[in-house]
């Protein structure tokens, strides 16, 4: 066994320990430690990705002395490693670029606790990505729920507390439903590990009585995670949560936390239910309809929004809709497109959520559109990054958003019937037009010359520009070399099966 196979274990256990350690450190030390530690993690996970691509197969890691159906297990394949790598890079960029806002938004005595939460969240994200056991998924889902509320309330203004209460209620509802689903599945299969569970479900799926339980469990699991990730009828907690959180938190919540739930859901479909069994259920078509509704209604809400953060948050709802639409299309191409969209959106949305507060800062701390007039002239770098992010969201070629839309279109043509193809193409077209409508409106507004353009220009430092540059480069790489990412995702999905 190569030493690299131990890295997934270290990433989880050391992240948990780092969280506890940061509680004991001062603010400065915690920040530096977290930065160094995250860089180390990225290097480690990149090594795992390289290893799995080189060997061409996934490996499992037994947690303890007891093998598969009795003890816990984690697993690393190409897709897990790629997802973990993306999540860690976005996490590091968000925390680094959002540091200056933390100085204002978080009290001195609690800033080290913010890094505690960030490290615990890293552990939870990684554990949910690596896990090969559905109950481990639930345990770390709890940690993710709590830490995501924690990084929201850390701003300590009335609004974030109120938003956190609602976010927490929705999240706990989701957790409860998820647990219910796990219990139902455990009852019929008697296993919690994914591999024996899938074997049992494949055996049981012939019997209609058991199939009812399995379908119900799948439905409950899906609804639970859909609430948590903000699928269409459940997306109303989004604008407050993302819009009022401190920018680093807003970026992490929108681009990592909700995506991690979807990744877990996809993992459950492939590795617990089994994709052949899942494709026969009606759940897929419901997700398709809700995804398309999310695309349309999220964009319509974004057009009505009166402040830029709410607009960006509502456009998240639309983008989440794309991901579920990909699941609804189904088949290898559909899931590839969905996972590509997870990456593309997390890279783009973190970019947008980290630029809007800077534009607001250049306009007297107001996020309202009419105050933002000319803010890109006052803060050139932030304006430029916003422009690139907006182009990606609209789906202009060479950006990641375009490649994602292209993948959705081709996936629909390859897999689905006529009606679905038509719906997907119409949804893509409509959404592109709506996206262009509200993002270009914002771009035009921030580049307009304003009457009060004599305000001081913003200072820029490397700790903001470098992470934003990295996110932009990733975005462009996903746009220009999309087939590399698509191939990696596809080979990872094949390892899932």
């Amino acid at each position, binding site marked *: 066994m190569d030493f690299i196979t131990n890295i997934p274990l270290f990433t989880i256990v050391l992240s948990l320990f780092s969280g506890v350690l940061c509680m004991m450190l001062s603010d400065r030390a915690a920040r530096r430690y977290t930065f160094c530690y995250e860089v180390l993690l990225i290097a480690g996970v990149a090594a795992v990705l390289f290893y799995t691509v080189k060997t061409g197969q996934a490996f499992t890691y037994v947690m303890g002395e007891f093998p598969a159906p009795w003890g*816990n297990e984690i697993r690393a394949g190409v897709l897990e490693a790629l997802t973990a790598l993306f999540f860690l890079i976005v996490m590091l960029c968000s925390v680094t670029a959002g540091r200056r806002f933390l100085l204002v938004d978080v009290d001195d005595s609690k800033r080290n606790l913010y890094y505690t939460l960030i490290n615990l969240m890293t552990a939870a994200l990684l554990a949910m990505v690596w896990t090969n056991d559905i109950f481990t998924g639930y345990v770390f889902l709890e940690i993710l729920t709590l830490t995501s509320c924690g990084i929201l309330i850390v701003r300590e203004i009335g609004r974030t507390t109120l938003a956190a209460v609602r976010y927490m209620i929705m999240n706990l509802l989701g957790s409860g439903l998820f647990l219910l689903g796990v219990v*139902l599945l455990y009852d019929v299969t*008697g296993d919690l590990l994914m591999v024996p569970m899938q074997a049992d479900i494949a055996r049981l799926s012939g019997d209609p009585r058991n199939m009812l339980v399995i379908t119900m469990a799948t439905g409950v699991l899906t609804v639970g995670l859909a609430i948590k990730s903000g699928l269409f009828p459940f997306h109303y*907690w989004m604008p407050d949560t993302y*819009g009022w959180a401190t920018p680093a938190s807003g970026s992490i919540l929108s681009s990592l936390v909700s995506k991690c739930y979807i990744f877990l859901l996809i993992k459950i479909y492939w590795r617990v239910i089994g994709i052949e069994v899942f494709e026969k259920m009606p759940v897929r078509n419901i997700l398709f309809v809700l995804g398309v509704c999310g695309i349309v209604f999220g964009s319509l809400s974004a057009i009505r929004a009166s402040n830029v953060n709410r607009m960006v948050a509502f456009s998240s709802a639309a983008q989440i809709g794309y991901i579920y639409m990909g699941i609804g299309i189904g088949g290898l191409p559909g899931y590839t497109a969905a996972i590509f969209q997870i990456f593309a959106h997390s890279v783009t949305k973190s970019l947008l959520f980290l630029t809007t507060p800077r534009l607001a800062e250049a306009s007297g701390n107001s996020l309202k559109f009419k105050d933002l007039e000319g803010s890109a002239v006052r803060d050139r770098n932030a304006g430029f990054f916003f422009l690139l992010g907006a182009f990606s969201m609209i789906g202009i070629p060479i950006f990641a958003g375009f490649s994602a839309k292209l993948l959705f279109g081709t996936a629909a043509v390859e897999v689905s019937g006529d009606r679905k193809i038509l719906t997907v193409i119409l949804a893509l077209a409509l959404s592109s037009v709506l996206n262009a409508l509200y993002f270009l409106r914002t771009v035009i507004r921030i580049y307009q010359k304003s009457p009060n353009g004599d305000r001081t220009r913003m200072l820029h430092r490397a700790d903001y520009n470098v992470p934003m540059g990295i996110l932009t480069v990733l975005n462009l790489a996903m746009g220009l070399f999309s087939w590399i990412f698509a191939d990696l995702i596809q080979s990872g999905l094949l390892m899932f099966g």
Partner: protein
Amino acid sequence: MKAKETFLKWLDGDFDLLAHVADTDEHPDPGRAELKREKRHINRRIDSSKAEHRVERAEEKGFYALYTLVAVVSCVFLIGILLFTISSLPRYGVENPETTEVVRRYVENGLEETGAVNIVAGMILDYRAFDTLGESHVLFTALICVTILLRIDNKNMQSRYEDYFKIRMERYHELTGESIAKIVGMVLIPSIFLYGIYVLLNGQNGPGGGFSGGTVMGAGLIIFAATYGFDCVDRVFTAKRLNLLTFCALGFYSFAKGYVFFMGQNGYENHIPKGTPGAILSGGLILPLDIAVGLVVACTMFGFYSLFRRGSIGGGWKSDREL
């Protein structure tokens, strides 16, 4: 109309419960002025005409009725399909070799493989120790979140300043009066602690373990603080010491389990003696891990109580801030 508007605004995330409270944030809250204006606008509309008002009242009633109806119907529907699903689950207690494979090994070989008489302890701390590692960090995360929300600092002091002095006064009265509670506490508190320690140390041999023992000890600490006042508790449990205790317990947990996982996967012997089943030093790592979990749980329980009561974990606000 008001209820409907408020509800719709709540859905949109525009509804402002805190409009009447002074904002504790020192920075201008973007969008607040706009919301106030909107609110005034709504108020004016409601006051505008009495006849219209009556119509709105009727509409409001209708909206509430509809809302309740939809909620009840959807809940009944959900309950119905869940009950229907449960009716088609396998019968409880019927032996099914395919679904009890995992459980059978826990029951039959648990004692031999983990060295713990209490199979549940062996299961959560040995077979599925990774889940429990996460679970103990869930508690820690909750403590951190409550600390962020409730610990008094420069940002939320303004709103809690009066509370703080009220609490100081309460604590003064607490120390001077209520002697019955003190006498009862004198009898009760040592026995609670003793019982907590017993439950904690016997997790591998009988019902109990870290979570339950820690809860009992935490309850003992809370009763101690409630009867004798925080000043007494603070002499031993300062914030620094409580943090250090949590840090050591969780750090030990992570490293012990990391070691076992690493050795187990790579096929090395981990050199942890199992001991004689039934003795107090048995079950390999289960006893030390139970102690670690118990300490974390006790610290968390006391931390919650202390944060809710006075806005700091140990010591006054000042000493907490100096940390």
